[in-house]
């Protein structure tokens, strides 16, 4: 009556010996690689905050002109560089974001990323994200600065070229997540393709598009190389982006970094902290937008 089934003797514990040891070593190496990355990040951030924070004040950020390198740290301000960064990045955004979104609309809504032209544009917008930023600077120098002279707008053009493929890629990924049923529903109501795209598809993907654009702006705001030969560096504020040399926070840091004067270096650290805060705020804003508005992403 009592049927005793004999349990087979299987050892379900972790295998012993070198196999277990190797597994543990490898897991610890993975953790170690993450620690190796945190160290320089923390090191950089702490240094920038410690050295930059004493210099920064509201008047320092808003007044100019930028004093010469020999001046001590408590003289003048970097207002012109803050103004330049805001203006140049604003114009770059104004050009690159709408064009990038339209390009992504072509890729996803019209070509579907397939076909000869769609495939080419999709492939080369990927490749274009890898074009070195200094080459963008040389490009705008060759086609714009040689004819129209140095200006903040030339810098905006260079930054715009840098942002365009990033905006296209991020928008394209977001448009792909919009469910087809939304498009089909609107077509069934008789809407044209343009109307479906603008009033249904884009709003559905808005969160992702905005966050992608913010990340592209953060990337552009921190770039120096495309600005070196397009805006030059000046010490006084130039609110007119369309004519005359301009300046920006990254350019200012670059000139100050190679200076031996402690005043100039202190201004460099202050500008670096300002720039990092701007980039981080943009990135955090992008995260918040993604978290609040993304509706169709499945994790």
């Amino acid at each position, binding site marked *: 009556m009592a049927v005793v089934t004999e349990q087979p003797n299987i050892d379900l514990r972790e295998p012993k010996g070198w196999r277990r040891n190797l597994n543990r070593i490898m897991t610890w190496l993975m953790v170690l690689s993450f620690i190796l990355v945190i160290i320089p990040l923390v090191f950089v951030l702490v240094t920038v905050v410690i050295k930059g924070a004493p210099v920064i004040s509201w008047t320092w950020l808003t007044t100019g002109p930028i004093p010469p390198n020999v001046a001590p740290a408590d003289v003048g301000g970097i207002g012109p560089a803050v103004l330049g960064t805001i203006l140049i990045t604003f114009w770059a955004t104004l050009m690159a974001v709408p064009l990038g979104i339209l390009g992504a609309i072509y890729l996803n809504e019209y070509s579907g990323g397939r076909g000869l032209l769609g495939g080419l*544009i999709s492939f080369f917008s990927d490749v274009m994200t890898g074009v070195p930023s200094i080459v963008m600077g040389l490009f705008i120098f060759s086609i714009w600065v040689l004819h129209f002279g140095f200006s903040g707008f030339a810098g905006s053009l260079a930054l715009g070229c840098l942002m365009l493929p990033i905006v296209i890629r991020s928008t394209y990924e977001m448009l792909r997540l919009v469910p087809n049923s939304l498009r089909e529903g609107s077509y069934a109501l008789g809407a044209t*393709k343009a109307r479906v795209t603008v009033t249904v598809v884009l709003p559905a993907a808005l969160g992702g598009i905005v966050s992608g654009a913010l990340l592209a702006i953060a990337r552009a705001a921190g770039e120096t190389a495309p600005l070196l*030969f397009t805006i030059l560096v000046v010490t006084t504020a130039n609110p007119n982006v369309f004519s005359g040399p301009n300046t920006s926070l990254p350019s200012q*840091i670059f000139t100050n970094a190679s200076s031996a004067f402690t005043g100039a270096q202190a201004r460099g650290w202050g500008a670096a902290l300002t720039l990092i805060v701007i980039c981080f705020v943009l990135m955090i804003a992008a995260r918040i937008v993604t978290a609040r508005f993304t509706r169709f992403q499945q994790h």
Partner: protein
Amino acid sequence: MSTVTEAGPADVAGSARALSERRPLGDRTFQILALASGLLVLVILVLIAFSTTQQASSWFTSQGWKIFTYNWNPTAGDYGALAFIYGTAVTGIIAIVMSVPVSIGIALLLTEVVPYRAARPIVYVIDLLAVVPSVVWGLWGILIFAPWLNHIYADIGSAVKGIPVLGNLFGPPTSGASFFTCGVILAFMITPIVTSLSREVMATVPAIDKEGAYALGATRWEMIRGAVWPHSQGGVVGAVLLGLGRAMGETIAAALVIGSSAVITSHLFAPGYNMPAVIANQFGEASGVFRAALIGIGVLLFAITIIINVIAHTIVERSARRARGA
């Protein structure tokens, strides 16, 4: 609202052709705008190649094959770019060698070891690393990191002095601003992109492969070797190449920490130069053939990075397609 009234019952009776013929002007304009924006990418790439090559033509014509010689002396009219090409290769290789194992380690940690909830903060930290601007790395690199590294370089240098191969690579002369410092900074900068691309590839490994490996009694590491690695190898190679492309084109950090000395030397702790750095540092005072030479170095850099990127994206796309098909 007007479009809705247009598509009244009368149109429903029409054929598909009739419908497409009734596309309003705005609709067609929008399509053309979208197409033009898409084409802009191709136009810009062609324009970059064309306009920069044109500006650099006097370098190519006046120097001929001498552009690939090792003699850079603008005051004497010698514009050989070999030292910069060498520096770009050396710093790129140092960056890749240091960054790839770490990036793959983090990618494996994120996809195979930690749970999803713990993975997100790690991803945020890696993203922070990507947001730190190039010029801030450069500022920190030259004012803080390089002087600190120079002590280590000096110790290593005196330790390996006279030893055949090591002495030639790591021996004196040493300097804080050097090939190696530049390579390390570039490694910090490309780690986020290599990590995130590798992670994307590893996330496509089918769960059934991993479960199969575990069912056969594999440890986690054996599962990674047997199931994850064969599946993601191709994609990781593509990610590494993309990282290499980034490292070669990174300008401002390199311009500040590489040491600005146009020499070809086996000493990794000695000051050197690379292609983007020389453009950034010398363009300001250049004119005539000198400026053409610097733009020409930009053309070479553009060509190299385009080739690397095309190869990398082809590899990534192929491995992604195979992952979908599997």
